[in-house]
């Protein structure tokens, strides 16, 4: 990656997160933690030390009661088309070079310099300050899908990449095309568990996948679009104040402007 312009693929895995349906229940965070073997920490209120591959933010319209409104915004890794984290990695431990556009994170190669964390404007990357310590016996409930990471490396959401591999394997076994998975054949844990179905997941480039049209909706936006990082995660809301907080209005002063769809 040179860092100049978004890298294009035939498949672009992406999400459209409906903020009008997210109740902030936290099931996505729990399912993510379980799927990716994130060890519980004793003081989870110290948010500088926790690992939240997906983090549910609380947004407020800042109005006084009774006009106050809040919205919840789940933030996974944006899997940017033009990621800020990739060009700064001195050891190519993170890259965007696989069909589907998922930004990889290779733990054994990571030297823990944290340049990528500084570069990521979405705070989607986390550093392992400690080795993962599970309560005695809980290692028996580790998911077979993600290796446990040692201290000293950076980690982040990878759209549950093992699930992609498994979906492709299944397609191969069933005589299908692993490069043309059906809508819903591959789902990250957060999208899978969400009780209100707020997270729609699929190939943004495939017209047969729901996300293809949803991402083009007038209610869809991306976070900090003005930075030009071309995230593959879209948000959806009918509430203008929420869209404005996504910073999408900066270019023209109007919400929903400056949309760049691939």
């Amino acid at each position, binding site marked *: 990656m040179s860092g100049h312009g978004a890298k294009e693929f035939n498949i672009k895995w992406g999400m459209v997160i409906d903020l*009008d*349906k*997210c*109740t*902030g*229940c*936290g*099931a996505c*965070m*729990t*399912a993510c933690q*379980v799927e990716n*073997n*994130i060890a*519980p*920490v*004793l003081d*989870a*209120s*110290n948010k500088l030390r*926790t690992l939240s591959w997906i983090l*549910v933010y*609380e947004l*407020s319209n800042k109005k*006084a*009661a*009774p006009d*106050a*409104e*809040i919205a919840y915004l789940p933030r996974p890794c944006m899997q940017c088309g033009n990621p800020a984290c990739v060009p700064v990695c001195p050891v190519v431990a993170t890259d965007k070079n696989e069909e589907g556009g998922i930004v990889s994170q290779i733990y*054994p*190669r990571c*030297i823990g310099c944290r340049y990528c964390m500084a570069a990521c404007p979405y705070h989607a990357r986390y550093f392992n300050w400690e*080795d993962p310590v599970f309560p005695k*016996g*809980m*290692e*028996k*409930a*580790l*998911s*077979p899908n993600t290796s*446990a*990471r*040692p201290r*000293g*490396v950076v980690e982040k959401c990878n759209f549950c990449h093992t699930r992609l591999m498994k979906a492709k394997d299944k397609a191969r076994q069933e005589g299908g095309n692993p490069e043309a998975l059906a809508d819903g054949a591959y789902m990250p844990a957060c999208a*899978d*568990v*969400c*009780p*209100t*179905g*707020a997270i*729609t997941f699929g190939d943004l480039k495939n017209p047969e996948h*729901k996300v293809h*049209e*949803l991402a083009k909706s007038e*209610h869809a936006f991306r976070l900090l679009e003005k930075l030009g990082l071309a995230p593959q995660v879209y948000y*959806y809301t009918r509430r203008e104040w929420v869209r404005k907080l996504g910073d999408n209005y900066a270019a023209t002063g109007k919400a929903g402007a400056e949309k760049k769809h691939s």
Partner: protein
Amino acid sequence: MGLDRRGFVKIVVGGVAGTLFTPVIWQSLDDVSIWSQNWGWIPSLNKGEVKAKAALSKLCPAGCAVKVNTVGGLPFAVTGNAANPMSKGGVCPLCAGGAQLMYSPARVKAPMKKVGEGKYEEIKWEDAEALLVEKLTPLKGQDGKIAAISGDETGTANEVLSAMLAGLGNTGFYVMPGEMFTATKGVKLMGGSGQPGFDIEGADLVLMIGADALDSWGTTVANQKAFAATRPTGGAVSAQYIYAGPVLNNTASVCDKWLAVPPTATATFSLALANALIEAGAVSSAADFGDYKALAAKAAAAFEAATGLKADALKELAAKIKAAKAPLVVAGASFGQGAGALDFVAAASLNVLLGRVGQQGGMTLLGNGAKAIASAADRDAAKDAASFLASVATGKATPGALLIYEANPAFALPQATEMAKAMGNIAFKVSFSTYMDETAALADLILPAPHPFERHDDALNPYGVAKATYLAGKPVVAKPVHDCKDPVDVLLAAASKLGLSLGFDTYADVIKAKASALGADYSALTAGGAWTGEAKGGPLTLGAAALAKAAPVALADKTVALAPVTRLAYGTASLATPPANTLTVRNTELLGKDLFVQMNAATAKKLGVAEGNKVKLSAAGSELKALVHVNEGVAADTAAVLLGFGRSAWDEYTKGKGDNVYKILTVSDEAGTGLKVWAGSTVTVAKV
């Protein structure tokens, strides 16, 4: 031939270049990076075939019908069961981490006997069971000497417990307070019988008064699914959702409108809305309509002062309700308990006024359902544990033995400190518990119960369902992680030794009989299905006679209404925040060991406190310390605090974090019903 300078440089350069072209150095670097991260203390993953098994996960009060994913037979993740008509593929945040909870450090690992204050020793199961029989034998046949408290609202285990007590000549079967209890009493006050249900799925306007229906009230996941179905992403919104309650909570965050109603003004709000509807033309054929109309008019006059809202807000709401084809009012306490029956009656009466009882998308009434054990108590005859322990405290009740099934009364009852003290008056307390909770820590005998994935269990009519619903599950794993026995199996064996036959030897047999009595297919249920009956209505009055007795709550100076807040992800009355969920707690809710009290800026100003101040909330002779967080999502003159923190037992992830709001919930007797209520508790707030 000597080596000249030029030759030496050639060799060095050639060597370096050659090394760069061999994979050795790169491979070594790669290996080093792998070796340096591949330490023995980094846990390795489990191997084996990955399977998914249907299960009933009763970690949340309603119970989620889920699929448990296993690797080599070991559960590791929970996913939704799309085939189940109740959960429809959704999972709540507690059940999502269910597999990890099997290995919770808080689990009771073996039967334990108290040998001193706070000291226990492990004993064998046969000794534990013998001790249970030995302690119950002299109390047999003396009413009031054996009591039981159940924290499970839906399981047939309650039939076994109540039938066992009845067989031993006792009537002291109590349930932990919940919506089901007060709502069933409320229905009685409206001249009906049974447990109310709410057809959220069929409604086109859902007004939730208090009920946190999209997060912690009723069948949360089913409610969320019903809500989501009316607003497909990218499609048209087909139902309006409105929340009226003290806190802009998870439910209110996605509603079309939030009306900030302090917890002390719930009934006033409901009745004032009734007045607005009546003014807009609503009439009812109920016999007590005249009295009701007068009460509604009285409430409307007090509305603005009691709620801090403008009367226009009610008019707008009434117009929306009138315009809706299938409006539904969901009645409940904002934290799932402690509201009197009158708050329920006031809200539920709106369904009667609108003619929505028994209608599609309306309020329904569910019967008790066929019993597996004929001598068991009827479900709607349940008595509440708070009143019982209050009479133990005053010496009115003097049980010699208390059986506690999946309940945590020492933590999760109002005025928790007194409740825990009252338990000290009971000579022999047995806790059937999966986890070392505050009640188990006070018990004389702790009998470890299996985790939901290790046991047979069932759920009939989880509170909120519109039609009779029955779910059942069987163990996912061959053997429990610890030395557990199913509490019902233990009770049945004890009953048998006490000379009482309930007709069953195991809980699995009881559940099979229950399924058969209901006409359900047990195998289909344990394969992840659900049995459902018909949705029914019934004649109800507007409850005017009961509502006339409701007394308004007045706030003294420096006193605010207390709004305890529940979030399902943070645990329930019988489950502390699971280790996998601590991450979801915000640092504006809990910071280190400090809990936050949330209030809006106007309330903070009135109380003379500011963001970050350490304050003391006092009531009921107890106090709670917290930090102030100014949050505009809290109603006027209200302090909101999260429930479920301040644990003194459990594990290092929860113990000593925050403070327990139950301590400062004040119990009072509800006028006219005599029920114990604490949803309208008030507190004084002072800077520390």
